[in-house]
């Protein structure tokens, strides 16, 4: 590779958080006029590297050179001033402001009196947008534009602030195919003008369509780099997952045989469920004693679907049936009474950290064990039973929950649904951020509940989670179901390819 032509070059970069190595021995180079793809699973080190480049992480080992000069950014602002731009998955536009105000955000031209010179601002914005081939009235409120256009306006803003290298984080995850085509046309045009892009994405087809070069990360290391002309999707997936050796135990390389229970009664069924842009046309069936995995990338809609099934965000269209009866879940209390249970992905949103353990467990069953008066002894007895069953430590039911470790808190979040078993248990990212031991505990608990005849839905962005738990897997992409794996052997690469 022509190192001397590199716009941005990193050598031997490493980063640790506490004792955990997030990135080690990474060399990375981005040439002028190049679109450089970056792929890897969650936690592979992509975002750590991007945050180092963008100045968010100032503490790291190794060297970085920008346009032939050694640089060491101490803040995101410093990186921006030197020409590093970043467009996040969650856009940082200001929806209430006009296109012109967004493009010139923080750089509004002032007139002699020190007020904003609106006419000049609009003219500059119009000229800048026109130079990018974007035909938008600068006075339009940006929230009135479709998402794809908002994203291109944001790119225009980053360019206007003087960026020469722009990091795009999952730029296509929310776009429709025509919007993607327009985005790619813009990127190709800018590439001919010598601008460089780092293109992070889970969508490997998009990577192969737009990038010149792609770098693969796995477990904090750069494992491969190749021109996209020479490779295909299977090659990328193989390198993302790894091929044997040390990762074998952690990842599910082998095929997992799925066995759904076609004879069991259907406990939960949805028909044509839809909510805004979060998910559309969701028709699913969950049988008693079956674990249905809902897999998709971040933002694919499976986590929102789980919330909707628990009445947290009521769907706008479609029908939910429980045991064959249509139900309307206006709120979470209605969902609970209908026999649904839910464990959200974030511990903070399911636990009362200042309250004792037993109150955390009994909160979801209070109306079943007491009518008017509380029965704290009964609550403690129930808590003791779950503490013993799930091996929760420490064992005392009066300990404030905040003093428990994360894994034990997760068990408490499950325990509160186990006193009176629900018909359907919805789990959102049940093993995220857990160590191996805690994950095994969750798998064991879920297997036990399945054996008890509960229908279980596991929604996750992590293939391992779905593969280790599910009997049947439904894959979602951009809010829609794309395919289903049942009664067949499935492996991680097939799952990734389908999402």
């Amino acid at each position, binding site marked *: 590779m022509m190192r001397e032509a590199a716009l941005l070059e990193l050598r031997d970069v490493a980063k640790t958080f506490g004792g955990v190595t997030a990135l080690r021995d990474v060399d990375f180079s981005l040439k002028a006029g190049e679109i450089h793809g970056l792929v890897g699973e969650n936690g592979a080190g992509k975002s750590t590297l991007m945050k180092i480049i963008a100045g968010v992480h100032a503490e790291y080992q190794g060297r970085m050179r920008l346009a032939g000069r050694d640089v060491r950014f101490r803040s995101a602002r410093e990186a921006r001033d030197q020409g590093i731009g970043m467009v996040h998955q969650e856009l940082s536009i200001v929806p209430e402001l006009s296109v012109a105000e967004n493009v010139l955000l923080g750089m509004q031209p002032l007139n002699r009196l020190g007020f904003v010179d609106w006419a000049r601002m609009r003219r500059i914005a119009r000229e800048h947008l026109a130079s990018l081939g974007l035909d938008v009235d600068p006075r339009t409120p940006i929230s009135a534009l479709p998402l794809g256009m908002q994203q291109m306006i944001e790119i225009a803003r980053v360019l206007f602030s003087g960026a020469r290298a722009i990091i795009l984080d999952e730029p296509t995850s929310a776009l429709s195919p025509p919007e993607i085509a327009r985005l790619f046309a813009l990127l190709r045009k800018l590439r001919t003008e010598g601008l460089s892009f780092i293109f992070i994405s889970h969508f490997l087809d998009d990577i192969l369509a737009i990038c010149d070069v792609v770098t693969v990360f796995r477990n904090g290391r750069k494992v491969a780099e190749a021109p996209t002309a020479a490779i295909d999707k299977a090659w990328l997936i193989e390198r993302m997952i790894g091929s044997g050796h040390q990762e074998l135990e952690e990842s599910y390389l082998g095929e997992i045989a799925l066995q759904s229970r076609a004879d069991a009664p259907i406990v939960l069924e949805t028909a044509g469920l839809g909510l805004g842009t979060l998910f559309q046309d969701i028709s699913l069936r969950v049988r008693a004693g079956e674990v249905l995995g809902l897999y998709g990338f971040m933002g694919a809609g499976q986590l929102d679907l789980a919330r909707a099934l628990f009445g947290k965000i009521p769907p706008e269209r479609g029908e939910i049936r429980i045991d064959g009866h249509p139900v309307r879940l206006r709120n979470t209390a209605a969902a609970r009474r209908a026999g649904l249970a839910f464990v959200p992905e974030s511990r903070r949103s399911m636990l009362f*950290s200042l309250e004792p353990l037993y109150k955390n467990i009994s909160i979801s069953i209070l109306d079943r064990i007491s*009518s008017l008066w509380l029965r704290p002894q009964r609550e403690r007895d129930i808590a003791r039973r779950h503490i013993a069953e799930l091996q929760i430590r420490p064992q005392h039911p009066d300990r404030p929950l905040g003093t428990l470790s994360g894994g034990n808190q997760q068990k408490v979040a499950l325990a509160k649904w186990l006193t009176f078993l629900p018909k359907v248990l919805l789990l959102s990212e049940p093993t995220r951020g857990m160590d191996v031991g805690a994950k095994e505990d969750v798998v064991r608990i879920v297997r036990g509940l399945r054996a008890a005849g509960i229908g279980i839905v596991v929604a996750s962005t992590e293939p391992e989670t779905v593969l280790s738990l599910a009997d049947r897997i439904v894959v979602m992409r951009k809010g829609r179901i794309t395919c289903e794996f049942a009664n067949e052997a499935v492996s991680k690469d097939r799952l990734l390819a389908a999402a």
Partner: protein
Amino acid sequence: MTGRAENAVRPAPALRRAPWLRNRLRNIAPFATLLFLVMLFAIASPSFASLDNLANILQQISVTGIMAVGLTFVILCAEIDLSVASIANAAGVILAFLTAQDASVNIANIPLPGGAAIALAIAGSALLGAVNAFGMTWIGIPSFIMTLAMLQIGAGICALLVRGQIAYAVPKLIATLGNGSLGPVPWIIIVAAITLLLGHIVLTYTRFGRYVYMVGGNREAAEYSGVNVRAVIATVMIISAVCSGLAGMLGVAHFGSAQQDEFDSYLLDSISAVVVGGTSLFGGQGGIGNTIIGLCVLGVLNNGLDHVNIDSFLKILIRGLILLAALIVNVYAQRLKTPMPGDGAG
């Protein structure tokens, strides 16, 4: 899995040494303040520490106390009700409006039997509370703004009904409860004590009370546990309004008149009582016990300042400073208790 993560969960070293004190700062600080004030005034004024004066103080905090019961429910839910005094005033005015007044009172009122007047005044305050509840839970107006609007609405109702006049007569039952005595003990103290006791029982021993604490402790977690959070919040707003209504009726009887702007100072007093007592403004921590201590602090302070003959304008400033100190302790106590994260590595 357990060992390392548990260490990470421990708060800062200085606080680890005294966890007992740290967890009870919320309760200890108000109690210490009360003891300090009592001793201060007892030394400064010989007339302060007497049985008569104790009865005085209790009588002075009774109306505030009844109002503060409902407000405790609201603040435990991490909401606020700025309309308590206004609803109290409205209930008192409605009661007088529905009672036969002396010929000298120039109000086009509608005399009803005493029982009906009381029932309608209570129903009226419950209705105002229900409007608060509706605005907050169905429309989604933050409680601060919603109850600010209700403060105006309540004032408007009073203005329309009395039209600048003053009414004096209230039904006999209310007159007795507000102004009469059972033996040596004024009825208003007994009613306040019963209301506080009921509030404590509901909060501590009933399922609804648990929901109030849990909704205040972590609203999202309560929702994800299948608790009908909107129903809980709607109920506390109505409880608060009914307590205010009761306070307003008794207050009118106690003061001997019903008029506009009669309860204005009670908004700040009742909020101060709850917060000075140590109930967390962030919800989920505290209770009626705290409110009682807070009431006593305010009562002793107001009464004691009279006994030591302090400039009455300085009194206002001192009360403001005491409230500020209580807020600082309140926020500080919250900060001491929160550093046990709900999501340590694990």
